[in-house]
């Protein structure tokens, strides 16, 4: 994703490319021939698996044969899943929501500085934003575990000042949200940067001319200009964050910070007979996210977010 936005960001600066579009061509079978291989792949390995997952979520276990299932319409799986793991759902939404807000707060000034203040350092900063993400995601999360560890400088200093109520940062929700925020930050920075970079800096000057104070300019001119990027950024942050389990696994505790992703993962791999529950949880998560995303897009944005 990151390079995609970087690429489109670079293109947007090129004045050669502002086409008045005429409609595409309309000719026979060519478009279908172009589409067939890719769409076949998506159908076979995205749609069909989802249908299979849906059917698995309704399967029942053979009595007395744990790990063996038969086709059924066992809605009870959903009831079980949601009653046992409802709290994990809420936790996932809360963590992902919090991380998204934090990402926005951190990303906006950075994107703003890159678009309007960086001058010739703009491309360098763009590279710097993307670069850390070429180090493996797992390695970086483990590094955070080390940075936030009890015997590392940060936790020690906070403890010495008695600012850390529980005495730990790792094993708490703070560490999980911090990890999510860090890992999905570029997904917020790049779209916001792209829409700000496309904006005419003279609009900001005009805004500053009309409204003397910066906060009003920010609220009435800058943020609306960045709106498409903010919309795309929040989706690109929230969706993967809500389904993530690696941060909770590596930075959180064994009990109180598990997210729905952790449950799905362990139900699939470590709980005997957890298969239908895991499938029901996955389907529920997908539907929940789709509903939230659709509502959000309908409320704030256009169709072409990505």
């Amino acid at each position, binding site marked *: 994703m990151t390079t*995609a936005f970087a690429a489109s960001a670079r293109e947007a600066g090129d004045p050669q490319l502002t086409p008045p579009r005429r409609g595409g*061509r309309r000719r026979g079978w060519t478009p279908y021939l172009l589409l067939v291989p890719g769409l076949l792949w998506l159908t076979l390995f*995205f749609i069909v698996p989802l249908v299979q997952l849906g059917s698995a979520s309704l399967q029942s276990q053979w009595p007395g044969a744990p790990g063996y299932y038969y086709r059924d319409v066992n809605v009870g799986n959903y009831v079980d899943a949601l009653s046992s793991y409802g709290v994990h759902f809420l936790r996932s939404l809360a963590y992902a929501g919090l991380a998204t807000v934090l990402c926005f707060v951190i990303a906006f000034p*950075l994107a*703003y500085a890159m678009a309007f203040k960086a001058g010739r350092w703009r491309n360098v900063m763009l590279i710097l934003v993307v*670069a850390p993400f*070429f*180090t493996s995601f797992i390695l970086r999360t483990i590094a955070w575990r080390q940075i936030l560890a009890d015997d590392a400088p940060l936790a020690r200093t906070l403890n010495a000042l008695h600012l850390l109520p529980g005495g730990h940062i790792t094993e708490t929700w703070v560490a999980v949200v911090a990890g999510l925020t860090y890992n999905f930050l570029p997904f917020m920075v790049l779209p916001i940067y792209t829409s700000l970079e496309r904006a005419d800096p003279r609009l900001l000057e005009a805004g500053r001319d009309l409204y003397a104070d910066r906060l009003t300019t920010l609220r009435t001119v800058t943020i609306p200009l960045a709106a498409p990027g903010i919309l795309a950024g929040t989706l690109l942050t929230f969706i993967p964050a809500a389904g993530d389990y690696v941060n909770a696994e590596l930075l959180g505790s064994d009990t109180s910070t598990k997210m729905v992703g952790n449950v799905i993962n362990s139900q699939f791999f470590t709980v005997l007979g957890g298969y239908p529950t895991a*499938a029901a949880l996955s389907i529920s998560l997908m539907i929940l996210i789709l509903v939230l995303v659709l509502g959000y897009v309908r409320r704030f944005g256009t169709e072409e977010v990505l």
Partner: protein
Amino acid sequence: MSRTRSWVSDHLAMIIAVAVLVYLFLPVLYTFVFSFNNYRRSNITWNPEGSPTLKHWANPCGAPGVCPALVESIKIGALATLVATILGTLIAFALVRYVFRGRSSTNVLVFLPMATPEVVLGASLLTIFIQGFRMDLGFWTVVIAHIMFCISFVVVTVKARLQSLDPRLEEAASDLYANPRTTFLRITFPLALPGIVAAALLSFSLSFDDFIITNFVSGNETTFPKFVYVSYTRGIPAQANVIGFSMFLIAVLCVIAAQIIGSRRRGVAA
């Protein structure tokens, strides 16, 4: 005093930006520093005795399993990139260049995998491979899964590039005696190429760094991220840090080289 304050408020955005960049690089720095750690069992805490040491850099394949995992990741990444780039580019061309029935449903089908959490993608693929297609989990199931989630990103990237091209350029080519084939080969394809290359790089980095989906569908196959994750509980070798940091260096050098070539190509002489 007030001059200091106005300097700060003028440069506030830039100050925050630099702070955020430091924050972004902090874990990379940790990864780098710990690649010189003379650790005992697991490379988690710094051992002042004998550190820093260059021995892990001198022998990056020294830890068992780390280099085979890297090779697997590169093979999977290359294959997934190749197939996803071709399939996704074809879809992008169809979407931008043609008006056809079913265009908006195609857009939805391409968008959906990006709006689906990775656990759900992984869980559904695992289910179909086991219950539906009855395939053995391993190298090929990972490749299939990676191609699937890369296609959407390729479509988005290439589509953006194609949409930004002036349709008059193709008209001009055909006006200058180029038949449709030549127009495509000489004008459309070269102009779309930067977008296709960007899409390929993106695919590779997505595939190379993927853990969640891979973990669902890989069976006994071990990729580099999976190797790191699995060794976390047993003890991470510092060679993982060496390789992780080298990937970072290589990628940064590639991006810088691309930037230099790109700006020379465009030849912006002001």
